[in-house]
């Protein structure tokens, strides 16, 4: 388990991290979200000891040391490889730095290239690959030694939906192997699809922390998705409805100021008769993100 306890970091006058604490158990995925500059990369750099910080970070109950290097798979925010090397040379070099011998790595390369659908052979030069394929090679370099702690800084950035799915599968496979995984993303869809837990940072502070359901339920089931022949004006006139968003045909999304108003609205809309759709849900992660960011501007 990766444990982060009360870490703080200040750059000149900017408080980049302020008493941040969370854990990433083995076999779980933690999503780190927040606006640009919220402190996500600084958190990763602290975990990797790239910067000095206050507080404590432990991996399997001990501070991270040179012994932990081989357990870690790290994908930085900006991708970078050695352009003059071939795919094989690049992968073997980085795998050897992770303590995995060339003899073990070489037979796996073709399989990984196929898995990520890389357009090129093991002898293709990195500089001759497209940006997307270079990104996939870097992902292979991050995963090929089967890390036990996977740190991915914006891993989906620049990937098309097909390749993003390939990456999702690889992350889930690593999770199933028991790896503790932490990744940052601005795309709440990926976070929702993958994460067991999430942490949201704002100005270096943790503003949300917990499982996806816990976080969403903190905000109450304040959204009603209904399909009805009522007009938007009639819906807006209902008690505790603060906003009505008209979707397709007879579909509406109602925002409530009190989740307990749900049964009364249900009765008003159905009068004991069949209704095609009535679903009361907490806000989506995307909405929570906007809400939290919005709080800052209020």
């Amino acid at each position: 388990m990766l444990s982060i306890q009360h870490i703080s970091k200040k750059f000149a006058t900017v408080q980049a991290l302020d008493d941040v604490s969370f854990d990433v158990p083995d076999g779980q995925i933690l999503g780190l979200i927040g606006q640009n500059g919220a402190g996500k990369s600084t958190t990763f750099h602290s975990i990797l000891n790239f910067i000095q910080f206050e507080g404590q970070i432990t991996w399997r109950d001990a501070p991270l040391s040179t012994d932990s290097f081989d357990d870690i798979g790290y994908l930085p925010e900006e991708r970078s490889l050695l352009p003059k090397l071939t795919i094989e040379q690049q992968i073997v070099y980085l795998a050897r730095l992770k303590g995995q011998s060339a003899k073990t790595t070489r037979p796996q390369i073709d399989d990984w290239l196929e898995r990520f659908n890389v357009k090129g052979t093991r002898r293709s030069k990195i500089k001759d690959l497209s940006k997307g394929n270079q990104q996939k090679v870097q992902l292979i370099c991050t995963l090929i030694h089967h890390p036990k702690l996977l740190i991915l800084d914006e891993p989906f950035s620049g990937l098309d939906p097909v390749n993003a799915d390939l990456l999702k599968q690889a992350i889930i496979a690593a999770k199933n192997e028991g790896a503790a995984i932490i990744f940052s993303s601005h795309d709440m869809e990926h976070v929702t699809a993958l994460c067991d837990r999430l942490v949201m940072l704002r100005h270096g502070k943790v503003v949300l922390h917990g499982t996806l359901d816990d976080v969403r339920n903190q905000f109450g089931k304040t959204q009603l998705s209904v399909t009805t022949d009522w007009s938007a004006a009639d819906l807006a006139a209902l008690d505790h409805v603060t906003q009505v968003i008209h979707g397709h045909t007879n579909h509406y999304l109602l925002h409530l100021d009190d989740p307990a108003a749900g049964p009364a609205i249900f009765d008003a809309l159905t009068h004991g008769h069949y209704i095609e759709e009535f679903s009361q849900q907490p806000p989506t992660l995307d909405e929570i993100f906007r809400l939290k960011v919005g709080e800052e501007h209020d």
Partner: protein
Amino acid sequence: MTKTWVVMFETYLRQIKTWSFLFMILGPFLMFGLTAGLSYLSADSAKSSQQLAVISQSAPLRQAYIKSHGDGLNTKITTTSQAKKAVKANHLAGYLVLSVDKQQIRGDFHGTQALSGGQRAQVQNFLSAYQAQANTVQAKLTAKQQAVLNRTPTLASHISTKSGTANAVKVASFWAFVTLLYIILITYSSITAQEIAADKGTKLMEVIFSSTTATSYFVGKIGGILLMILTQIAVYLVGGAAAYQWAGNSRTFKPFLTSNRSLIDGILHNFLSINLLYLFLGVVIFILLAAYSGALVSKAEDASKAAQPTVMLGMLVFFTTFPFQNNLDAIPVKILSYVPFFSSYFMPLRLINGTTSAWEVVISLVILLAAIAAGALMIGKHYQRLMLQNDNRSLWQQLLHRKHS
């Protein structure tokens, strides 16, 4: 340690596979080969046109000349008409007609250019000796009388060649050493600074520092570059020995090597000594500085600027040696032979001059090794911070800032 080796061999293999390294290694041999080839071709084509022919009605006279001065003669030409044709066709420099007229030996030279002083003396000596021999026979002298007439004065030269050569050896060794060290320093300072700076421009460093310590990586990088230097020195030693061997058997270079044997042996003696260690350690301390400069640049595009401080220091030290080339006993030379960076030039120069003791060499080496160790530790300690830092200040600003902080 294993990861240090991985970085070391990766750096080494990546560098030695480049065309620039190959040309750098083979450059001197290509130059030497080209020069030797051109000299051989030029000598071969000039050889026949520089030959002389000897023509004579008297076969014993002609044979006597050929026997005593066979080199540079075309013995196939035996008649005046053949010789004239050969001269006209520029296949012969000229021909010597030897004749005997009333017991007097006569030589007539015909050619496009006058005989050189040496050739003229050679012909004159032959004619005199042959004439003397003929005179002796004609005069019917007794053996005793002949011996008296053959008596010649003696001129002996007593020159102290050792001290004269020793000075030449010192001067030649001085120039050979400082030039070689300067070339290696400048070359590898640039390679090191660019190699490190190019790394800094990439985010790959974050991946690498999540795999190994900065110190281990830094030592591996420097180790890879030192392996390159050792490769170059080894290739030069082996190639140089082979070239020396070949030149010793070459008609073109043998006379030069023979006449300069003591000078060449003296220079080699000065190189294949503790000076080689100074040369190597000098390169090490300079590439450490170059690595530090490389780590200070803010982006890969500035890689070419990275070597500037090291190159300038290298030039400063190189030019500082000039005023002292004939005054290696001066106080500044003694002081600078203990100062790291300068000691790599000045202590070997004192060693070449024979004006230092073993203790002084030991002290100088200890200071140099301590400076290298301190430099490596200091850079290794700050390497991660330097490599991961993105600072828009110029290289000079960073250097000055660090000096004051």
